[in-house]
């Protein structure tokens, strides 16, 4: 093969390679958003409440993404607790709710409240999902097996096996002080939670 032709082919291949590389570089920042599974509007609430404000919060022990297990009772007498159940990893509203709480730590600290995040996903899924949120300051727990058992105890297991988007505020005595079983399609405003935390004893 003549040298000139080899040279042209080399340049041609190089140009194409550069073009491909440019496409990859451009796509990097969009990778995460493409991993969020888009869902249509869902039935706002698809479960029957089992708990009431003023009642005792059922205890639970669940595995945490960071390793080990976390029990509700370990905070008894020391901290108020906010449990944030979100329906599923890699879905639109859920993928934003916890990153929001992640930058609101000073508010939780102000009211001596520990946030606990729970989904019905398994640990590997939760690991991959929460990793893209950066370093979470609160434990993310897996209610995968027995599937959704804690969500069921809290009366928020939906008929498709996901949980409701729900917030429970539990005081240091283990008493439920606030329940927000929210429209699954919408994010609860932080303001509502803060109003409830203001009512608690630090």
């Amino acid at each position, binding site marked *: 093969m003549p040298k000139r032709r080899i040279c042209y082919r080399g340049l041609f291949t190089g140009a194409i390679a*550069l073009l491909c590389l440019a496409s990859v570089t451009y796509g990097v920042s969009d990778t995460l958003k493409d991993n969020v599974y888009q869902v249509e509007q869902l039935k706002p609430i698809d479960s029957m409440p089992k708990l009431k404000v003023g009642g005792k919060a059922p205890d639970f022990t669940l595995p945490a993404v960071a390793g080990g297990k976390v029990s509700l009772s370990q905070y008894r007498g020391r901290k108020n607790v906010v449990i944030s159940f979100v329906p599923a990893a890699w879905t639109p509203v859920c993928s934003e709710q916890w990153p929001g709480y992640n930058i609101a730590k000073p508010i939780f600290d102000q009211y001596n409240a520990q946030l606990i995040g729970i989904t019905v996903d398994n640990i590997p899924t939760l690991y991959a999902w929460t990793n893209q949120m950066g370093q979470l300051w609160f434990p993310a727990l897996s209610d995968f097996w027995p599937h959704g058992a804690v969500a069921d105890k809290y009366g928020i297991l939906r008929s498709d096996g996901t949980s409701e988007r729900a917030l429970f505020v539990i005081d240091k005595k283990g008493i439920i002080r606030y329940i927000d079983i929210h429209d699954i399609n919408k994010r609860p405003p932080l303001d509502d939670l803060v109003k409830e935390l203001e009512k608690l004893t630090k």
Partner: protein
Amino acid sequence: MLKTKVIFFAVLVFCLTVLSTPVAAEQSTIRGDVIASITLPFPQDQNAKNYLGLTGEGSFTISQIKAQVVIIEIFNMYCNNCQREAPRVNELYQAVNKDQNLKGKIKMIGIGVGNTPLEVEVFKKNYTIPFPLFPDEDYTIHKATGEVRTPYFIGIKINADGSLGVFHTKEGGFQNPTQFLKQLVAASGL
């Protein structure tokens, strides 16, 4: 042989053209009159008022901002990408203010879509954001600007007659604040 050369150079020119085009540049679909219709509440903070060159009470429009160019960041306090981008957006602000030719000519504001005033404040405090942020709690501005994904940047020129022209839009992070500022300055004609 000549045909091969022509094809080769055509491909090469195409590749180089694509590579030399800034990847961040996008065709704007947001019109200046849409931005002109946005009303925002006067900031409570006097420093923010001073920065924007506003006097008075009630609400104001973008054309009232004392600047030649306004950069709007559409963000959401809950959005992970907006959080990641926040330090770079602050760098962009610092880069503008360090440049004596640009300071005062380019002003920045942020609009938190679907965010309450408290949520915007959490974002501002957490990232020590030096420019004014405004809530768009009911998504009015978000809808008017085409429900863009966040973060989203809009470069607006305030014309001598008070009309507004959108000269640049950018979806997603800009990676390099210095480079992005250069692009904005070039595109705005400052």
